[in-house]
């Protein structure tokens, strides 16, 4: 997979970015699952990966179905660099803690995106808020599966 994170210039790129984040989260959680030995942690990571796969599909639909003229406006105020995931070293697998940190970063991304969407489209704001909340929940579940 090539991870491509566009600059955040429109809701189209914002959603493209969000999909890339979900794909990265799925990859990292799957990779971490192969590295962790504790069964509970493995299961939590795999569940996390599945969840991100489903979210990615949902975001594709949101991108296709919600974006009409009304929201084709330029956006400002979110910098790409603040949200791209840490690059994986070659052959290195992320551990559970890295996945938790990334999940928290994803939550932050969706919170900020919700803020931006608030003036534009209620449904988009709500979707982003829900994804943020869910990412925080996922981070919590992963955390507790490790202990």
């Amino acid at each position, binding site marked *: 997979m*090539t*991870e*491509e*994170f*566009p*600059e955040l*210039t*429109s*809701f*189209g*790129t914002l959603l*493209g970015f969000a999909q890339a984040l979900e794909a990265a989260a799925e990859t990292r959680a799957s990779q971490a699952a192969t590295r962790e030995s504790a069964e509970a942690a493995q299961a939590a990571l795999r569940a996390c990966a599945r969840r991100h796969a489903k979210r990615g599909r949902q975001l594709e639909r949101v*991108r*296709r*179905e919600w*974006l*009409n*003229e*009304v929201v*084709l*406006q*330029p*956006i*400002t105020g979110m910098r790409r660099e603040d949200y*791209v995931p840490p*690059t994986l070293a070659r052959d290195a697998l992320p551990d559970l803690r890295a996945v938790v940190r990334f999940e928290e970063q994803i939550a932050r991304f969706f919170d900020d995106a919700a803020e931006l969407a608030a*003036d*534009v489209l209620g449904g988009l704001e709500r979707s982003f808020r829900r994804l943020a909340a869910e990412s925080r929940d996922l981070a919590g579940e992963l955390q507790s599966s490790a202990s």
Partner: protein
Amino acid sequence: MSTAPRHLPEVAEHYGRMRHVVDGEFVESASPRSLPVFNPATAGEIATVPLADSGEVETAVDAAHAAFPEWRETPPNLRVQPMFRLKALLEEHYESIARILVQEHGKVIDEARGSVRRAIDNVGFACGIPSLMMGETLEDGGAAGIDEEVIRQPLGVFAAVTPFNFPAMVPLWFWPSAVACGNTFVVKPSEQVPLTQARIFELIEEAGFPDGVVNMVHGDREAVDALLADPRVVGISFVGSTPVAEHIYRTAAAHGKRVQCQGGAKNFITVMPDANLRAAIPNLVSSFFGNTGQRCLAGAVLVPVGECADKVIEQFVAAAASLRLGYGLDETAQLGPLAGKPHFERVLSFIEKGIAEGAELLLDGRSPEVPGYPDGAFIGPTVFDRVTPQMTLAREEIFGPVVAILRVGSLAEAIELANGSRYGNASSIYTTSGKHAREYKYHVRGGNIGVNIGVPAPMAYFPFGGQKDSFLGDLHGQGRDGIDFFTDRKVVISRWV
């Protein structure tokens, strides 16, 4: 991980010579006349489009005419089955259609996707024909023992002549409803942007409409005149400029056809002092510059009311100045080129006329720097302040990223200004006051009114059309208006003795 601008791949470098679609077959044109199709960002040639002669148009009408009797007797619920399949196919190929559209038209990918979405929505709407086409009945509606009912019936062959600014969407305002109602159809897409519709016709074929039900001819004025003259074509839908709309309306009417023509626009956008500017500014920017100003719903004249003018103008110009120009397949580009070189030259001449007539040029979009695309038809956001109602900038349709600002003192003045235009396509007001909004939508003569929305584009299930010189005819496109246009109401009064 890539940090470069995200360049989406082109579907193909060159699309070859376009073919007509007649009687369920893609056929080569025998016409000696043809035009190159250019990518307006790269100025590269990407296809050749034949220009049908009247004989080729006649063949397409032959096919549509022959297919009509059986299609008309295919029950509505069966007519929509290929429409449902087409809906699914368009969803499946959504992204590649949008990319082809960018290549031939220049708009940025998100705008292309959004317009494909609207094209699909029109197919979705037509899937509802069994409900939408229902007539009405009344027992004893005539008298005791005499029942009365009204039935909607299709009429025959319809045709649409469509513009260059929405290559996917505008043909689909018309033919899906017409065909779902039981008519057959000939589409003539703009010869400037034939590729998107050609791709959609491949999917139409795959969806399994019977041969001859939906046909397409490529061409120019000769093809249009052939459609107008053919007595078997019962109705024409047109979208384009007002002078052409007037020609088509007159000619079609002279031939006794049904006709609906969407013409030009000059849309006034009013900003009240009580507007929420944080939300309004990006929306205004998208209204004036989205699709590089080539929307019949684009804002053209910005009318700030009273004391808010300086603040509105300052923020608006700053936002406009920061827009990023580029090739539409660069996902981070916010503004594409004009759709073609002749139109590009025309827009430039309006800017020069504005300067000559004495308007104050706040932002000059001529000769922008667009790295990598030195030959593209790019004009950046251009804003004129202190425009007067008499200036060309305030009166004529420019169809580009050029804004005329007219300051007024009151809402009443703003309404009067908008109503003084010969056009009446769209108009918007930005306000937090319900009273102002109600005044505006009640009094402004325009087919599409936005309240805190700069591009008031009716969805597929609502009618789409302007007022005054922006529209000729009565029934608008889309929605139930479209169904009325494509059907005849027949009254049956029955007495059984």
